């Protein structure tokens, strides 16, 4: 048999199993629910870079919601409104005049080179792109496998958050208890963000301008800077308590819908080590 005939035969043989038609069911119950008891579990951070004039972004919002339905409160979602997709229209325009942007979201989008990329994009746990020193920026179709990968890892640290809120001066306080269960040989940082859920405003969804779109998990700002406080390297067994205070912004933010998110990150790789979220009040 000549070489080209052999090659064609081999390719044809490989094609015999070339179709996996799925007749249903289409889904599984995989995804792992929350683990009870006192065990410290690994939560996962999903950062969704989005904007109100980005017509494809609601697809990513829906995927984030779907993943939250699967993984429950172990998946913590931040919606970062950034780049020109988040630019507000001039006052007086019929829609898209609200400004979702804030310096924290813009800094993260800039520092991780998401600015300029076609939205929506996302980072899962700020994980590295394998073989590089840059973070992996993902289309939404790629989020689930990475969430699943991280959520099945063994936690190296646990975070507990206690909050208080003074409605008079709009001051929020977050008391963070950090418990390290495995040596963290690289220096780490603790950042504490505040997030507003369910803001009702305009959103482009495909070719439709949706007036009463519910914007979930909108990152509003930080209590201690974009990347938080440097805690240095920590050894297993270390327990720390940190307290951070800051004023709720912007002025129209609704304290009843605010969540506090604490993120422990590796200062070298920038990857997330642990993340936790609680309601402000």
């Amino acid at each position, binding site marked *: 048999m000549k070489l080209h005939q052999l*090659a*064609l035969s081999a390719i044809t043989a490989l*094609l015999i199993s*070339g179709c996996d038609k*799925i007749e249903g069911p*289409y*889904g599984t119950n995989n995804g792992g629910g929350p683990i009870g008891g006192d065990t410290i579990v690994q939560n996962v951070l999903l950062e969704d870079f989005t904007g109100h004039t980005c017509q494809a972004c609601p697809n990513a919002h829906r995927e984030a919601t779907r993943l939250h339905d699967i993984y429950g409160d172990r998946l913590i979602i931040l919606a970062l409104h950034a780049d020109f997709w988040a630019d507000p229209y001039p006052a007086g325009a019929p829609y898209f005049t609200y400004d979702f942007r804030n310096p924290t979201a813009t800094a993260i989008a800039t520092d991780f080179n998401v600015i300029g990329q076609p939205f929506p994009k996302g980072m899962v746990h700020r994980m590295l792109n394998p073989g590089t020193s840059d973070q992996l920026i993902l*289309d*939404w179709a790629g989020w689930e496998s990475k969430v699943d990968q991280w959520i099945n890892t063994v936690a190296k640290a646990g975070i507990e958050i206690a909050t208080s809120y003074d409605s008079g001066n709009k001051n929020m306080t977050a008391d963070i208890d950090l418990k390290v269960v495995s040596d963290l040989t690289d220096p780490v940082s603790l950042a504490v963000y505040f997030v507003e859920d369910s803001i009702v405003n305009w959103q482009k969804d495909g070719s439709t301008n949706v007036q009463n779109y519910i914007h979930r998990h909108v990152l509003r700002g930080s209590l201690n800077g974009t990347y938080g406080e440097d805690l240095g390297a920590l050894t297993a067994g270390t327990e720390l308590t940190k307290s951070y205070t800051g004023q709720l912004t912007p002025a129209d933010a609704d304290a009843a819908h605010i969540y506090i998110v604490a993120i422990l990150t590796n200062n070298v790789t920038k990857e997330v080590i642990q993340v936790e979220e609680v309601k402000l009040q």
Partner: protein
Amino acid sequence: MFRSYWEPNLGLDNSMDGLRAVFTPKPGITFKGVIGRQRDFFTYPENVVRGVDGDIQINDAIPFLSGMKLRIGLGGSFVSKFQKDDKPSLILPENVGAYAGRINLRYGKLAFDAEYAYKINDPSQANLFTYNYGEALFANLTYTQKGLGIRLSAKRVDNMDYRSDRGVTGTRLLINYLPAVNRQQTYRLATLYPYATQALGEMGGSTEIYYTFKPKSALGGEYGTTIMTNFAGVSDIDRKNLDDTLGYVSDFTTIGDDRFYQEVTFEVTKKLSKKSKVIVSYLYQIYDRVKIEGKIAEKQVTSHLGVVEYTYKFSSTNSIRVDLEHLYTEQDRGNWAMALVEFDMAPHWTLTVFDEWNYGNDDSKKRFHYFNGSVNYVKGGTRLSLSWARQRAGLLCVGGVCRFVPASNGLALTVSSRF
């Protein structure tokens, strides 16, 4: 069903790293096979693409039919991609196969060719993880005789976005090629609103008619006159939404309500003398910016474009071409004017300068001139090009594939060599 493609001017590269085999057992019969991984810019995803194609030209393969006036060609192909199921919550097909059958018939001045393709369930980011199958039909009927040409085309595409990675969008890792039914526009201002095939669903048709009035006739004049008219229209397919993972059902023969694109062209080509020729052209377009470009904008742009192109030959090797264009529209960036002058000194040199002026922009600060000057030198298989350009933002299309490019300003030196 399969096209491996490298187009550096467009920033596209899904060329294959693998094996290709071609086998011709006898005249008129050809088998092809390919297996490999597609290139995604500087990386090769692990997903494997493999395919086979068979083609038989009946009149060549069967000797006693060789003299038959009816020429028949038949072909079929099967392509499959493998990608691991990486979504724990879904049962995804890891092997996604697609097949196609085609026929081409020639009988005297008539020709007919058609291809039907089917793809099994292929949930992906592009189709929002629906488990619908995909299908496409493309058919052409042409009639040609001296001085007259007629072409009718029809196309229906449903859920045929086919990539070697279900998680990418845009122009990355495309496996198949879906040709457009509209004309590939070459005039500068006509490329402001170029239509790109909507792989997730479209239905369209086009007609094109050429007729040449003979020389020495009333309308033909001394050297003859050619007229061309073209109509193309593309709309969405019919969709009835389902609240399940199939997403929708679609009736094959029903056109959807959303019109994506429409064009009407009239063109007259007249040779004025042995040395000069003029082309006068009018193009009317309706263009859905939201659908085609994904832009927040007025849904439709309606434009009228007029072109006058004049060519004068100084000698058998030297010529000058002048191209004047004006585009009128009340939407998008408003009116445009363009002037181009090109000196062709065959066989080596070409000098081109043109200016596109967006004089009708509602924002007076954006009424830019987009100057472009270039010098090209060709010798043998080597081409050198030096150009300075202020490039307008918009869709850049090559070979029916389009990519959005931002506005830019700069100098470019291009060297290409074939050997």
